[in-house]
């Protein structure tokens, strides 16, 4: 639903005190400019459908020289990067390198499987990947008691947010996992399995599993509002039949040739040999762009489309909920507000 019939000025949209307050809250973070870094080419588990072990980046030589990393992060800071995302294959295996990054760029997030705790002195958001309940994790990730170990490792740790990746096979398990995290005072956000290039396995979503995922996400957002960091518009953006690029036009260099402004200008995705390739630069390299519904991609893509959403109070509220969610998931110390829009709106077209 959106009020398409009336033409609104932006000043009229933000005249609503709730909208204006949220707008002022989120715009203070518009200074964030991200790049991502593969920290190690090793991982302590092997998961089916893993993005890191698709494509060529897994074969990059691992540079473990601290001075080289220090110089890299310093140069990144100097060229305006204010937010670091540490990923691939498993950053917790190289905590000394994570620490160097944190000392240079104090805002960031680490994507981890959560099996090896990361020292609290690295005060980044920590995204702990969850792919179902423990039985499913053992099947797909070949690791027993994943969730119990992850929760124990990050008990009472405000850095942690659990990222539940919906595959076609674990949709119903999200209820059990969310309840368990609620009981343990933890927070969860949702990701969608997005096929790596060439992947034709059973984890690729279908229109039926997208619909079912939407229903379960909605149920959990309604039933666990304190636990679930998500919004109705997040659900829309990530479970539409069309993937993110078709809906919002991907801003990452791999799909965006512009080097003039925005992510096309600033974003780089460094591999473990400290090299990067503009042709491959993407928040989750080697994802099939036509199937990309990844939460990290959406955080940048949807957020960047502010102008498109500033057409009426409802649509702009939905966009603000998305940005509020994105900041709560990625930025330490940012608290998510109550969602402003609880109706399913259609993503506005480009023109």
């Amino acid at each position, binding site marked *: 639903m959106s009020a398409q019939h009336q033409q609104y000025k932006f000043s009229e949209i933000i005249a609503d005190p709730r909208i204006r307050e949220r707008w002022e809250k989120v715009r203070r973070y*518009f200074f964030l400019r991200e790049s991502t870094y593969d920290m190690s080419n090793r991982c302590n588990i092997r998961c089916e459908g893993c993005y890191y072990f698709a494509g060529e980046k897994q074969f990059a030589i691992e540079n473990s020289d601290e001075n080289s990393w220090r110089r890299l992060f310093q140069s990144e800071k100097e060229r305006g990067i204010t937010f670091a995302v540490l990923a691939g294959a498993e950053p917790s295996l190289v905590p000394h390198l994570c620490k160097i990054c944190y000392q240079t760029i104090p805002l960031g997030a680490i994507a981890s499987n959560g099996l090896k705790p990361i020292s609290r002195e690295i005060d980044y958001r920590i995204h702990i990947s969850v792919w179902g309940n423990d039985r499913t994790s053992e099947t797909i990730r070949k690791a027993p008691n994943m969730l119990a170990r992850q929760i124990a490792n990050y008990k009472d740790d405000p850095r942690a947010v659990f990222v539940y990746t919906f595959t076609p096979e674990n949709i119903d398990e999200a209820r059990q996992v969310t309840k368990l995290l609620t009981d343990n005072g933890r927070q969860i956000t949702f990701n969608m399995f997005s096929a790596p290039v060439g992947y034709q396995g059973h984890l690729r979503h279908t229109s039926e599993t997208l619909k079912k995922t939407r229903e379960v996400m909605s149920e959990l957002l309604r039933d666990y509002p304190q636990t679930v960091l998500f919004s109705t518009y997040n659900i829309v953006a990530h479970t539409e039949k069309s993937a993110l690029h078709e809906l919002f036009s991907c801003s990452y260099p791999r799909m965006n040739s512009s080097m*003039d*402004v925005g992510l096309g200008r600033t974003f780089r995705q460094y591999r473990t040999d400290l090299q990067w390739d503009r042709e491959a630069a993407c928040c989750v390299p080697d994802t099939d762009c036509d199937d990309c519904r990844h939460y990290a991609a959406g955080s940048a893509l949807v*957020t960047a*489309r*502010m*102008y498109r959403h500033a057409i009426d109070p409802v649509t702009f509220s939905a966009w603000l909920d998305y940005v509020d969610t994105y900041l709560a998931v990625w930025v330490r110390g940012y608290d998510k507000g109550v969602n402003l829009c609880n109706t399913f709106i259609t993503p506005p077209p*480009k*023109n």
Partner: protein
Amino acid sequence: MSNHTNQTIARISEIIIDELKLEDVTPETFDADLDLVDEVGVDSMDLATVALVLRDEYGIRIDEDDYPKLTTVRIIAEYIIDKQNSNE
């Protein structure tokens, strides 16, 4: 340069200074030929914010694909005047 263009440049400068809270700059001293990204430090979200205020001010739509072209205040002013003329 026409008086209309000068007025448009002055108003856009005022909007950018106000929206981006630029210190130590006034519309009179703001160089209309500065590169907004490289020399003023405007990023894509700043540009989107300015575009929304310009939409209110001039009643014109700025296409997302045009953002990279809007590199200086003078170019923005010419873009707006062109849009206004084509809408007439």
